[in-house]
Every structure is written in C-alpha cells, then in structure tokens.
C-alpha cells in the first residue's frame, strides 16, 4: 500500500511540479459565433503586468472590421474591466509592454502603418510613414525599442526604432533597418529583447536563402547591428536539386538571466511531423548555443504551434505552445531547469475537450506566470482566457 502510494506520488509529480494555478478568468466581454478574437503578434507579446495591473491586447471583428482591444485587471480583482478599443481602422497583431506603476505601451498595425500608445491615458501615435506590419516592443530601464517589418522596394525588411517617452507621449527618436542593403526577399515577424547589459537582440523570419530561416542580429547600443546570423544550428538545403531547405518560423525572444537572451521558434527540420518547438540560449556572449527540442517524446509525432519563450531575470524560463497530442488542441508548457526543458505539462484550465490554443505569457516582478489563450467554441464563440500561476 505504501509502495503504491509512493508510486502514485512519483507518477503525479510532473503534473503538479513548478506551478500552482489560480482560477481562470475570461478576458473578452463580447463573444459570438461570428466574432473571432486573435492573439497573434510578433514575438507574441499579448499580455503584460505593470505594477498591480494585468493587461491583455487582442484583435477581433465585433465591430464589423478587425480592431484591436485592451482589457485591464487589477491583480487582486476577480474580473477584467470592460475592454477599450485602441484602433480606428483595420487593426492587426497588437502587442503590450509593461512600463511602471500600472502603465503600459501598446503597439499595433493599423491601416498598414505601425501605431503605439501609452495606457491608460496617452494618445495613439503613428510610428511609420512607409507600409509597416508586425510590430513588437521591448524595454530595459528607460530604453524603449520597437521593431517591425517595413516595405522597402519589393519586399519587407526589419527595422528597429528607439522610442522616446515623455509623460504619456511617444515619439521615434531614431529608426534604422538591421541592414542597410535593400532586402533580396521577404523578412518578417521580428522578435525583440533587451538584455541586462542593455544590448538589443532582434530575430526574424528571413527568406533570402529561398526558404524561411530565422536570423538574428545584436547591437550593443541599439544603433549598429551585427551581420545577421542563423538562429538555428541546423542548416538545410536543396535535396537532389529540389527545393531550398526546410522551414523554421515565428521566432520569439525573451531577456533571460542577468545578461542572456532565450529564443524559441517553430522548426520543420523533421518535416514529417509538422513543426516542432526548438529553443536556444545566448548566455550573454551574443551567440546562441546549440538548439534544443522543447517538446517531450509524447509530442514527437505531433505538430506544435504558436510557441513562445518567457525568461526571468533569475534564470528561469518557460516555453509555451499548443498541440493536440491528447486528441484536441491544448496549451502546453515546459520549464527550463538550467540544463534542459522538463517534461511537458498542460496548463490545467487550457486543456481538455474543445480547442485551447495560441498562448501568450509573461512573468510579473514577483515571478508569477500570467498566461492568456484562446478557448474556441464554434457555437458560442471564442473566449480569451487568463490564468495566473505562482511558483511552488
């Protein structure tokens, strides 16, 4: 009997390790079968925690066109406040960044240009004149950066801007492409992180090699960027003269540890099992190390989607994504233990019947993990769900 009880404890260990979850909440106040919320954004920055306030941004079509929304919740409150609309014209892929004392910066694509706004309060500012999409934000101290994909000739290229914040007013103080040369093929989906030493890292999807390859570039001062390098350590090419190589997409970055940067992305190097989640760490050398497969053996033959990495200043890291290994899509996470990613664990409120997808997450200053995801139901509509987890 005692042996059996011990065995049960051991078997249950992965499911209860690491995180203690609070009750889930619904974020969006308007739902319906023909309303489609989306959490997709460059670097998947859809949730942020500033002081005592949790903020979530998303896009949905409740008003007859795609618009971007923000909902806030005091940490102790039992519900989110009614959302506010951020945009006036067609809006996509909003991101949110925490400032201090309950203040945030949101950025989004609206009518083909990138906009940003300080919240609560501030007015929306258009950051770009050229056609620009897929904006993301990162901050360290008072150094606030944005990156986006901007049309340059026939293709889009990655641009990084330093933003100035005076009271609640935002402006662009300097803006520059990662590379001076015009792009030779598409670039997009930038991820941005500022390390503890203030250096800036940008990763993005790049097609110059005639297949999709995540590239990365660093800058010590946010002005001069290094020549792009592959984020992946797997270099594929054509096979018997066919194609150009396997695909890897949607890189995400997070500041990690005292000086480091963590990255995850979707990688099709094993092209028969859909995209897998791969990760790499830069401990502060401004070189990413060997690639690590994040999902465990139970997710091997399953396509993974919507991956994100969240890093902590104390060296913790959590990768999140969704896959359907249990029959329907669920949100999964894997903790980084300093040497490897632990066994995959389903987020309790984001698992089970139905489709739970598209996780976005962040740490707060206390090390709690805040996760937001889509809970899809074709009949009643999609709920945006939120849960907070405290480290055990």
């Amino acid at each position, binding site marked *: 009997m005692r042996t059996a009880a011990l065995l049960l404890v051991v078997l249950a260990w992965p499911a209860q390790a690491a995180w203690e979850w609070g009750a889930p909440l619904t974020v969006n106040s308007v739902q319906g079968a*023909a309303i*489609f919320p*989306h959490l*997709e954004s460059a670097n998947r920055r859809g949730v942020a925690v500033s002081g005592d306030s949790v903020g979530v941004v998303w896009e949905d*079509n409740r008003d007859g066109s*795609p618009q971007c929304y923000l909902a806030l919740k005091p940490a102790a409150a039992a519900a989110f406040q009614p959302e506010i609309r951020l945009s006036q014209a067609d809006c*996509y892929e909003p991101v949110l960044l925490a400032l201090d004392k309950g203040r945030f910066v949101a950025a989004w694509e609206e009518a083909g240009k990138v906009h940003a706004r300080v919240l609560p309060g501030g007015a929306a500012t258009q950051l770009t004149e050229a056609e620009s*999409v*897929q904006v993301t934000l990162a901050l360290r101290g008072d150094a606030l950066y944005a990156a986006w994909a901007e049309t340059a000739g*026939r*293709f889009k290229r990655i641009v990084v801007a330093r933003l100035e914040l005076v009271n609640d007013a935002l402006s662009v103080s300097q803006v520059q492409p990662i590379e001076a040369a015009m792009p030779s*093929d*598409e670039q*997009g*989906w930038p991820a941005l992180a500022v390390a503890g030493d203030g250096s800036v890292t940008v990763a993005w*999807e790049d*097609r110059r*090699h*005639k*297949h*999709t390859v995540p590239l990365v570039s660093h800058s010590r001062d946010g002005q001069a960027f290094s020549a792009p390098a592959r984020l992946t350590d797997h270099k594929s090419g*054509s*096979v*018997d003269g*066919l*194609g*150009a*190589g*396997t*695909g890897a*997409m*949607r890189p995400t970055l997070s500041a990690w540890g005292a000086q480091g940067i963590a990255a995850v992305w979707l990688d*099709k190097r094993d*092209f*028969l*099992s*859909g995209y897998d989640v791969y990760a790499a760490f830069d401990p502060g050398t401004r070189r990413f190390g060997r690639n690590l497969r994040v999902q465990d053996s139970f997710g091997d033959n399953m*396509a993974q*989607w*919507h991956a994100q990495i969240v890093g902590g200043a104390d060296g913790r890291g959590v990768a999140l994504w969704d896959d*359907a290994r249990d029959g329907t899509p669920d949100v999964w996470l894997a903790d980084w233990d300093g040497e490897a990613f632990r066994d995959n664990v389903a987020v309790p409120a984001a698992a089970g019947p139905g489709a739970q*997808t598209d996780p976005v997450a962040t740490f707060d200053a206390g090390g709690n993990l805040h996760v937001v995801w889509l809970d899809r139901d074709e009949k009643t509509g999609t709920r945006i769900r939120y849960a907070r987890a405290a480290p055990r």
Partner: protein
Amino acid sequence: MRVMTMVLAAALFWTGSVLADPPAGYPFVGFDAGLKAARASGKPIFLYFGRYGCAWCDHTNKKTFSDAALKALYSDNYVLVYVDAESGKRLTLPSGERITEAELGVRLQAFATPLFVYMTPQGDKIMQIPGFKTVQDFRDYDRYVRGGHYKQKTLLEFLGGKS
C-alpha cells in the same frame, strides 16, 4: 510593345514572389480571390498548400504538374488557389474569420507540405491529400470530386471500386 513586355515580365516576377512556389504556368490565385471566383463560377476549388523552398512541392511541380493534360484539366475545371504555409499574408475563411496563410495550416492540421485541399465552390472542404502525388492520382481525385462521388463514398471506397 516593349513596355507591355516589361509590364508582363514584372507582373510574372511579382506573382512569383508573392505566391512562392506554385507550379509554373498554372493560373493560381490567392485564397480570397479564389473563393470569390469559385462562388461566381460554380467551380470547385483546388487549394495547393505549399511552402517556400519545399523539396516535395518542387518534386510534385516538376514530376506531376508539368503534365500538359493535367494542367489543362485542372486549369479548366477548378479555381486554383495557392497558400504559403509560412506566410503572414491574410485571408478570409468562409466563416468570415480573417487569419494568416500560416494559420490556415493550423486549422488544416497540416503535418507536411505539399498538402492539396479540394473544396466546394462555397469553400467547404471535401478532402485533403498530403504529400507527393502522381498525374494519375490527381486524375482520380478529379473524378471523385467533380463526379460528386464524395457525397456517397469515401475516397478509399471510390478508389477501391475503380479496380
């Protein structure tokens, strides 16, 4: 004449860059334009879900879609739609939901490319076929779809009944 040639060349070049890797010479269009054309024409949709640089897509293009008779069969009888598995380009599903082309792969639970999806003129999925296929395979799928056999039989039942 020279200006027209340059315009046509530029258009072909642009189309190639936007659509990534569809087979050469086929009148592939984007998802939204294809759905609109299918509704107007009543033709079924043949959706090619490919990936930029995909070797098996390239192989299928060279070995199968190079067949002139197959090209005529599919160009005449289908609205041909190409979707890039890793693109952020947006499309609107028949439900009205606007997603990226990459997100369509999530909804199709795509494991590998190429993936071929046959749809009704209204955009309802009839079936999806992954991987390299031969000219004869596509002729069989055409008979199954345009013959309306999918309403009564599974593809396996239909193909089994063939022999």
